[in-house]
C-alpha cells in the first residue's frame, strides 16, 4: 500500500468525522429550537463558552500541563545524546523543529507527544520504552509521535473535545430546564408543533452526548492511524514502527498513570487492559495497526 494514498484517505476520513460533529451540533440546535422555541438558543453561547474555556486553556498550555501530570523530566542533548540524535533525525525527515524531549520514570513501554504547535511541542518516552526497544523501533515510535505534532493532533483533539463538551452541557441544561422549568415550552406558542418532531428532538437531545463521545473517539482512532502512516512517510521504514508495536503488543505492563485525562496522548492506550469495545477506545487495536504497517512493508 502506498503511504501517500493512505495518508490522504485517513485525513479525509477524520475531516468527515469532524464534519459529522458539526452536523451533530446543527441537529442539536434544531432539536433545541423545536422543543423550546427560539429561547432555547439562548443556552448555546453558554454551553460553547464553558466548553471553550475548559478545553482551550489546557490546549494552549498542553506541553506544560502534560509534563506536570505525567511527571516527565526534560532532558538536554548532553544528558542523553543518543535520544537527542534520534529525535533530531526524525525531525529533519519531517522538516520540523526539534521539540523538547522528556523522560517519564515508568517501567511500562510507552511514549507521547503534545503541544499546541510544532514550536511548543514536547515528546516524552518512558524509561521502559528506552530499555526494551532498539534504535530502529524507537525511531518508528519517535516518527509516530512527531507525526502527531506535524498533523496538529493536539488541535484536532481540542476541537473534538470542545464540541463534545458543549453538546454534553447543552443536553444537561436541557434536562434541567425540562425538570425544573417545564412550563417554558407552552409559553413559546409551540403547541402547534408536530408531535413527532417534538419526540424526535427529545431523543436527539438525550442521545447527543453519547453520539458526540463516539465521534470524538472515532476521530482519535483515525488520527492514530494517520500518525502511523505519516510516520512511515517520515522514515520510509514501516518495519521499525511495526516491530515497535509488536513489542508493545507482547508487553503486558501498563503505564501506572491510568488517568483517562491523558490516555489519548500515549502511543499505546494505557487503559486497554480489559476487552472493552473497540467503539469506546481512543486507539485502533494494535493488531490492526500492525496489519496496516505490514501491508506497507510489502510495497516499499
Amino acid at each position, binding site marked *: 500500500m502506498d503511504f501517500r494514498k493512505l495518508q490522504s484517505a485517513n485525513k479525509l476520513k477524520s475531516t468527515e468525522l469532524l464534519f459529522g460533529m458539526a452536523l451533530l451540533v446543527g441537529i442539536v440546535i434544531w432539536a433545541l429550537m423545536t422543543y423550546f422555541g427560539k429561547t432555547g438558543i439562548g443556552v448555546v453561547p453558554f454551553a460553547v463558552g464553558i466548553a471553550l474555556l475548559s478545553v482551550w486553556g489546557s490546549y494552549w498550555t498542553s506541553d506544560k500541563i502534560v509534563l506536570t501530570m505525567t511527571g516527565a523530566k526534560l532532558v538536554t542533548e548532553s544528558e542523553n545524546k543518543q535520544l537527542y540524535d534520534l529525535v533530531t*533525525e526524525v525531525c529533519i525527515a519531517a522538516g520540523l523543529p526539534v521539540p523538547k524531549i522528556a523522560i517519564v520514570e515508568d517501567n511500562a513501554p510507552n511514549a507521547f507527544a503534545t503541544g499546541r504547535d510544532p514550536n511548543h511541542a514536547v515528546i516524552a518516552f518512558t524509561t521502559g520504552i528506552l530499555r526494551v526497544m532498539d534504535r530502529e523501533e524507537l525511531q518508528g515510535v519517535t516518527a509516530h509521535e512527531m507525526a502527531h505534532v506535524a498533523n496538529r493532533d493536539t488541535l484536532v483533539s481540542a476541537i473534538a473535545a470542545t464540541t463534545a463538551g458543549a453538546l454534553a452541557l447543552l443536553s444537561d441544561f436541557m434536562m434541567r430546564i425540562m425538570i425544573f422549568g417545564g412550563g417554558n415550552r407552552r409559553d413559546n406558542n409551540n403547541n402547534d408543533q408536530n408531535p413527532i418532531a417534538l419526540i424526535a428532538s427529545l431523543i436527539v437531545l438525550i442521545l447527543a452526548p453519547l453520539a458526540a463521545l463516539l465521534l470524538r473517539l472515532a476521530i482519535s482512532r483515525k488520527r492514530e492511524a494517520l500518525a502511523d502512516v505519516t510516520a512511515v512517510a517520515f522514515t520510509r521504514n514501516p518495519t521499525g514502527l511495526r516491530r515497535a508495536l509488536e513489542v508493545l503488543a507482547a508487553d503486558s505492563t501498563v503505564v501506572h498513570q491510568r488517568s483517562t485525562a491523558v490516555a489519548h496522548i500515549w502511543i499505546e492506550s494505557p487503559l486497554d487492559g480489559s476487552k472493552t469495545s473497540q467503539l469506546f477506545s481512543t486507539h485502533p487495536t494494535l493488531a490492526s495497526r500492525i496489519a496496516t504497517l505490514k501491508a506497507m512493508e510489502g510495497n516499499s
Partner: protein
Amino acid sequence: MKVVLFVLVILVILALLAIMSRNRLVRANISVDEAFAQIDVQLKRRSDLIPNLVETVKGYAAHESGTLEAIVAARAKSTQATTFADVAAADGQLTQALRGLLAVTENYPDLKASSNFLALQEELSSTENKVSFARQFYNDNVRTLNSAIKTFPSSLFVKSAGVSPRPFYEVDDPQDRKAPQVKF
C-alpha cells in the same frame, strides 16, 4: 445591478484563487531552498567529523591507509563542490567511502573497543541518518514544487512567480534506495 454584483463577486473569487495558487508556487520554491540548506548543514557536520575519525582509525588500523585516503580525498572534493550536481556527486562518494571504512573497522577489535571510536561511531551513524533524511526531505519538497508547476491552476502562474522545476538530489548509491541503517 444584481448582475454587476454577481460579476464582481466572481472576479474577487478568481483573484483570490490566482493569488493563492501563485503563493503556493512561491512557498514551495522557498521550501526547496530551505531543504537544500538543511542538506548543506548536515554535509558540513559530517565533514567536520572526518579529521577526528581518520586520526582515531589511523592509530589502530595503519594498514587501511587506502580506505583512509579515499575518505580524505572524497571529503576534500565535497568541501570544494559548489554546483548542485557536484555537491550530490561528492556526497555520494563520501557516503560510500565512509561505509567502506566502517565495514573495515569490523576487523579491528581494539579500535571497536576504544571509547573514542564508539562515541565517533554513534556520531557518524547519526549524521549519516541526518544526511539521508535531509536528502529525502529535499526530494519530497522538489516533488511538491514540480507537481505544482505541472498542475492546474498553479501551472498558469509559473512565469509570474519566477519558479522553474528543480532537479531531484540523487546520490549515486544503490544502497540509498533502501531505508537508512539505524542499528548500533
